[in-house]
């Protein structure tokens, strides 16, 4: 990829959805596919994708690399690198089925691996994985790591979400949490790597909107060793979450204040001086990480998921609960399609999160 191509990105419209069993019970892949199908008109067939958590319980101790190859003969180079840099225990093709509406697909492979402590050389294990992923995406021809977390995986491509679900045989996977995306990109460049979710380590994000601050967000995360190679603004959000939550260990509520900060007017109205000082500092220090522009997004990790909209709430987001199941979607109709009588259903306020938390992690394992 040339330098110019690397800077290109595709803004998008889109449908988002997520389902979490907060008790860690199984949510069949078909259920998220049904939820997305209800929002068919929010996509245009140029991208759909899913992230499932808890889908590889028997391999939960291994990083699951989902890798997309533009051509099968690009695979050898990545596999050579993985074999040299990791302890690779299983390599397999991601099984798919021919599906009407899904055009020529890249080669999809799945690798389960561990990082040998001896390779770390003082580096944090997860930082090691991040570097490996960045290297593959940046340097190895036509090869894209679309997810690399443990006991989770991303399935995405060019097509309507329900067709992508069919293509990847999502009904065969059983997880406790799913997020999904249907894409309506605003230009015609559509490619498999550019579909949502975007994922790194345990994080996966789907996003409806446009990050008008992408140019500076990208340059900000580059300072910390993240390279944006997937030509879609959402990619940078994953790296921001990884940087701020995993590496800098900011509490979640400050992450929300970084991405969708309170207006100065609101900060000045805060009555506790300590709080005012804190939020002032957040804006001073993390201004380049603010996600400016209309967005609603779902951030998923193994411990739950969060829905967040921009500080002016220019994109839709609806949250609901049915028993122990937490749902997020762009539209209420989609939620009611899979949960006709929710116990609670609400629209999160601008800049305020809707959070679902996995209460019994062990139940998922």
């Amino acid at each position, binding site marked *: 990829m040339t330098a110019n191509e690397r800077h290109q990105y595709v803004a998008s419209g889109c449908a988002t959805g997520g389902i979490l069993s907060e008790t860690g019970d199984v949510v069949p892949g078909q259920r998220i596919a049904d939820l997305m199908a209800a929002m068919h008109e929010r996509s245009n067939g140029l991208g759909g994708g899913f992230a499932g958590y808890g889908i590889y319980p028997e391999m939960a101790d291994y990083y699951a690399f989902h890798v997309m190859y533009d051509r099968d003969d690009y695979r050898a180079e990545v596999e050579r690198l993985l074999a040299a840099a990791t302890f690779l225990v299983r390599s397999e093709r991601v099984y798919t089925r021919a599906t009407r509406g899904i055009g020529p697909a890249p080669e999809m492979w799945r690798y389960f691996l561990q990082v040998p402590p001896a390779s770390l050389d003082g580096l944090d294990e997860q930082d090691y994985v991040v570097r490996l992923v960045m290297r593959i995406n940046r340097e190895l021809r036509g090869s894209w790591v679309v997810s690399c977390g443990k006991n989770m995986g991303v399935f995405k491509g060019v097509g309507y979400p329900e067709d992508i679900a069919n293509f990847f045989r999502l009904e065969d996977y059983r997880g406790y949490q799913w997020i999904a995306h249907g894409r309506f990109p605003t230009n015609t460049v559509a490619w498999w790597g550019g579909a949502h979710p975007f994922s790194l380590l345990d994080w996966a994000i789907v996003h409806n909107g446009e990050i008008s601050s992408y140019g*500076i967000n990208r340059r900000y995360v580059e300072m910390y060793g993240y390279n944006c190679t997937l030509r879609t603004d959402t990619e940078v959000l994953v790296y921001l979450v990884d940087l701020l939550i995993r590496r800098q260990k900011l509490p979640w509520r400050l992450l929300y204040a970084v991405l969708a900060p309170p207006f100065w007017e609101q900060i000045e109205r805060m009555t506790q001086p300590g709080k005012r000082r804190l939020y002032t500092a957040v804006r001073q220090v993390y201004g380049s990480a603010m996600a400016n522009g209309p967005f609603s997004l779902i951030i998923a990790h193994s411990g739950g998921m969060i829905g967040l909209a921009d500080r002016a709430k220019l994109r839709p987001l609806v949250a609901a609960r049915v028993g122990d199941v937490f749902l997020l979607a762009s539209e209420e109709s989609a939620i009611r399609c899979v949960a006709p009588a929710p116990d609670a259903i609400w629209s999160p306020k601008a800049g305020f999160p809707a959070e679902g938390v996995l209460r019994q992690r062990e139940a998922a394992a």
Partner: protein
Amino acid sequence: MRNYLLPDFLVRAGDGCTGCGRCVRECSFHVLEMAGGRPKANHARCVACRRCVTFCPTGALRVLANDTAYRQNPYWPAWLRQDLMRQAQTGGMLLAGSGNDLPYSSLWDHLLLDASQVTNPSIDPLREPMEVITFLGRKPSELSVSVAEDGELCLDTEVPPQLRLELPIVFGAMSLGAVNLNVHRILAAAARDAGTLWNCGEGGLHEELYEYGENTIVQVASGRFGVHTRYLEQAAAIEIKMGQGAKPGIGGHLPGEKVTSDIASTRMIPEGADALSPAPHHDIYSIEDLAQLIGALKQATHDSKPIGVKIAAVHHVAAIASGAVRAGADFLTIDGFRGGTGAAPKVIRNHVGIPIELALAAVDDRLRQEGIRNQVTLIASGGIRCSADMVKAVALGADAVAIGTAALVSLGCTLCQACHTGRCAWGITTQEASLSARQDVAEGTERLANLLHAWDAELKEMLGALGINAVESLRGNRERLRALGVDAEALSILGVQTAGRE
């Protein structure tokens, strides 16, 4: 020696002239005198400052370019032939005021801004919040917080001193001597009105203006004029002046005739004595010496305020900037080759240094590559002419811009480039009391405050069009710029794609 030089300009009084003599009184260059009830001109002295024309009550006066032809020859432009004759007649280095006036291409004029269409609603700044508050000061790379017993978050990181600017514009350094006390009064008052900073330059700060300390950046330059404890203490920030865009590598010379009693006492030198600013600081011969001076100033002010460094945009500006940041600079002013001056050798002004656009882009990139961009506030200066230049500078990576010439133009300056003569008819760069009095402090303050207000409104309008409601999302966001007619190498330095690229 005979004079071969023809006048550059011709002054003509037309039919409407009533012979009131106003033009004669306004002209500080002694071009005009009354003869037979009409103004008579000694054209050779005219600098085309337009003072007489502006104040002619009947609009009868015109200043015209002397169109007496030279044989056309682009390689030997008329001004060059004139300069050669001038040097032949005087044997001296040619002096000039104001900024580089050669027609080097301006990259600002080859950069275009983006706007929202469909996928991102543009924002109407009259209806929606539009935030342009900017902070000057060193930022930590991350915050650390703890959770208190009541569940509230508690900030554990000590954030270094930050100065709040209501908009990303400060006034550039102009010394007392280069401009007069009235201009300093205007800059200080306008900065306070607008909630920003002015910079007193290297000639010290008049006692009278200490009340504006919260809005004042004071300079410590090679001459150390007017530097003492109270000077440092009353200021909001301190800037070490290492260079100036109009004359990189060159010191300054304020001739004795400009050193009036006010200037003498402010600079702490005898009245009438020449004030020489050496080209280098005599205690700074390398980067570690700069680090020592930054440290000394921080110590002297008990770490209570940001300490900055001003450098001229030269070929190695990125490496120098990186060194200055590592030496402890909390803010960095990069001054491009279009920056103004009260007086400089014309050959230096016109040929030394590089454009601020490229310097700024290179510095911002370099600091990011080194992971130290957050440690410093970047101020771009030297040829910021309008709010569009400012917006483009912010998009290239500046936290704020400094304006000097644009501010003076709002006070009447017409860029006649005669600053160094001390005869400024608009009362800006002169120390002669009768001329300085032409700058009315109240009116000048209003003019400057109006200028900032207008730029602020235009900035917000442009941000709204971009669909961005906080200026920090534009800062360094080169994705929102496109270039037209810029060569590939410059594009790669600017980090901007050509227009038409997605």
